[in-house]
């Protein structure tokens, strides 16, 4: 299985990732997570805007997927804490996210994620988080 197929398999196995409709593309070891817009993602129907919880969940899933790509974890890492910053309202468009692993220690990984829509330079939300990673042995 290519790393790209492996990533797709990981995402397809997670019911909640399927529910949101998350896909992912790989360029080398850099992954871009893709969240196509769907009616069920709307939080505020007036604007309309994507639910803040959806963006948080999407970025959290991006971090977990990037960790599985880079670290090849046997088990899913566990989330310890996340901080989400909301920068712009999520418009009814496809949302993208990319994660940067800042550090992986023996037990803890620190990951930053940014999500954007039309312009990479104008992110709609950012996330920083700590994850419990377990040795692959």
């Amino acid at each position, binding site marked *: 299985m290519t790393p790209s197929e492996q990533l797709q398999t990981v995402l397809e*196995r*997670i*019911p*909640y*990732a*399927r*529910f*949101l409709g998350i896909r992912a593309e790989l360029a080398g070891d850099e992954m871009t997570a893709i969240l196509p817009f769907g*009616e*069920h*993602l*709307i*939080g*505020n*129907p*007036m*604007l*309309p*805007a*994507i*639910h*803040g*919880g*959806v963006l*948080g*969940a*999407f970025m*959290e*899933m991006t971090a977990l997927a990037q960790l599985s790509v880079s670290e090849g974890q046997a*088990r*899913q890492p*566990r*989330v*310890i*804490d*996340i*901080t*989400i*910053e*909301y920068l712009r*309202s999520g*418009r*009814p468009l496809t949302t993208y996210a990319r994660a940067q692993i800042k550090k992986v220690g023996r037990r803890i990984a620190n990951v930053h994620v940014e999500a954007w829509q*039309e*312009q990479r330079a*104008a992110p709609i939300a950012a996330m920083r988080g700590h994850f419990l990673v377990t040795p692959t042995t």
Partner: protein
Amino acid sequence: MDIMRQALGAMNQGSPHARALGIETISIGPEGSVLRAPYKPEMVGDPDTGVIAGGVVTALLDHACGQAVHTALEQFTTIATLDLRIDYMRPAEPGKDIFARAHCYKATRSVAFVRAVAYDTDPDDPVAAAQAAFMLDSSAGRGFGANLKPAKKPVKGRS
């Protein structure tokens, strides 16, 4: 209080994502709001254990914090999450509904501060805890359908 309860119920129904998750408001009051997200197979984050996805807890906490702001304010105003910090203390028990209790402990003219916990059985044995800040009157000058209009800055290659 009953009118408030009805309004919040309508808000849950009116928010497509809250409806998709099946989020319900259980109680509201000065001590905060309690909301529930029922356990559903499609909410699972770890297929090996059946534990609900952290993202579901995130969405429920965000929604609960927002409702706590609405109940704490005397007049209805539009709000937007500025930041949300979540600590995950333990995995939720597979098969159990998740509850969130949120309390808006301070609101200034422009910002509201909220604390919340998510739990499956006992609020004193939480699954996760959250701290959030909300901007008040967030859609000032932006009316119905504002997000359907093109972005202010023109985007290359966009007609």
